[in-house]
C-alpha cells in the first residue's frame, strides 16, 4: 500500500528533480525582496511622488515585475524542455481544479484576517517581527515534501527553519532598518516589512543555492536516454 502511495507521489516530486521548482521559488522570493528595495529608490523615497515621475516609476516597476515573472516561468520551461525532458522524460500535469484554487484563496483570506485581527487586538504589544517568523515557518512547511523526496534536503529545510527563527531573535533596530530601506516600510510598520524582506531574502538565497546544487547533480547523474527508446 505504501509502495503504491509512493508511486503516486513520484510524478509530483519529479517537478523538482532538476531543481527547477526551487530555482523558480528562490528567484521569486529574492526578486520580491529586491522589488521592495527598488521601490524606495524609484517611488516612495523620491520627491516626484506627486508628479508624472511617480507614474513613470510605477510603469518601470510593473515592467520589472513582468520581466521577473517571465524569467521564472519561461526560464524554467526552457530548461525543462532542453535538459530535463530529453534525459528523463516529459510529464504533463493535471490542471488544478477551480474548487482547489478557491480553497487556497479562502485559506489565504482566513490567515490574513487572523493576522490583522491579532495586530488590531494586540496593537503595540505585538512584536511584528513574529509575522516574518510565521512567513518563514510557512515557507519551511511548504518545503517539507521536497525535503522528504531527497535526504540531503533536510539540511536545506533546517536552514529555512533556522532562518525563520533567526529573524525573530534579530535585534529590533536591525529589522527596522531593513524595513525602512524598503519602500513599503514608509506605509506599513517598518518592523513587519523588515522581517518579511529578511525572510524572503534569506529563504530565496537558500532555495537558489539548493536548486543550483540539485540541477548540477541532476545533469551529472543522469545520462541521456536515446530517442530510439520511443
Amino acid at each position, binding site marked *: *500500500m505504501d509502495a*503504491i502511495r509512493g*508511486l*503516486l*507521489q*513520484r*510524478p*509530483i516530486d*519529479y517537478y523538482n528533480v532538476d531543481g527547477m521548482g526551487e530555482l523558480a521559488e528562490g528567484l521569486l522570493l529574492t526578486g520580491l525582496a529586491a522589488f521592495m528595495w527598488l521601490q524606495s529608490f524609484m517611488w516612495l523615497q523620491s520627491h516626484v511622488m506627486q508628479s508624472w515621475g511617480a507614474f513613470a516609476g510605477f510603469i518601470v516597476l510593473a515592467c520589472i515585475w513582468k520581466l521577473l515573472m517571465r524569467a521564472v516561468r519561461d526560464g524554467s520551461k526552457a530548461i525543462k524542455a532542453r535538459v530535463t*525532458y*530529453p534525459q*528523463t*522524460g*516529459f*510529464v*504533463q*500535469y*493535471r*490542471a488544478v481544479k477551480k474548487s482547489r484554487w478557491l480553497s487556497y484563496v479562502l485559506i489565504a483570506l482566513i490567515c490574513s484576517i487572523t493576522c490583522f485581527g491579532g495586530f488590531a487586538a494586540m496593537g503595540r504589544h505585538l512584536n511584528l517581527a513574529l509575522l516574518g517568523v510565521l512567513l518563514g515557518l510557512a515557507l519551511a512547511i511548504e518545503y517539507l515534501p521536497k525535503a522528504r523526496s531527497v535526504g540531503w534536503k533536510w539540511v536545506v529545510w533546517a536552514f529555512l527553519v533556522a532562518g525563520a527563527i533567526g529573524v525573530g531573535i534579530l535585534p529590533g533596530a536591525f529589522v527596522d532598518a531593513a524595513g525602512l530601506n524598503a519602500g513599503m516600510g514608509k506605509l506599513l510598520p517598518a518592523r513587519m516589512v523588515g522581517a518579511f524582506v529578511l525572510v524572503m531574502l534569506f529563504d530565496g538565497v537558500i532555495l537558489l543555492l539548493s536548486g543550483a546544487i540539485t540541477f548540477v547533480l541532476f545533469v551529472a547523474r*543522469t545520462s541521456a*536516454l536515446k*530517442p530510439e*527508446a*520511443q
Partner: protein
Amino acid sequence: MKPELNAIAEIDRVIHEPGRLMIVALLFAVEKADFVYLQYETGLNKGNLSSHIAKLEAAGYLAVEKTFRGKVPQTLLSLTGAGREAFMGYWHTLKEFCANTASAAALKKEVTIL
C-alpha cells in the same frame, strides 16, 4: 472461500502485475507522460515496458499517442477513463482486503488470548 478473502479474488489481474501497477500508478497522478519518463521511473527495459503498455492498451486502460518533439519521435501515454476507474477499483479492493485481514488477525489474536 473465507468472506474476508473474497475481496482479493475480485482483484483486477491486468493492473495487479507489478510492472503494470507501476505504470498505472505513475500515470494516475498526471495528465500524460512519455515513454522515456516511464522508463526512467520504473527502471524497466524497453522491451518489457512496451509489452506492458501493449497489454494495458489492449485492456482499454491506456491511450497511446505518437507525436514528435522537434524532430525526435515521442510516445505520449495517458490513462483512459476506464483505466482511472480500474485503478481506483483496484485501490479500494486492496484497502478492503487489508482492513478485513487486519480485523480477522486481531480477532484471532483475541481468541488465542482468551
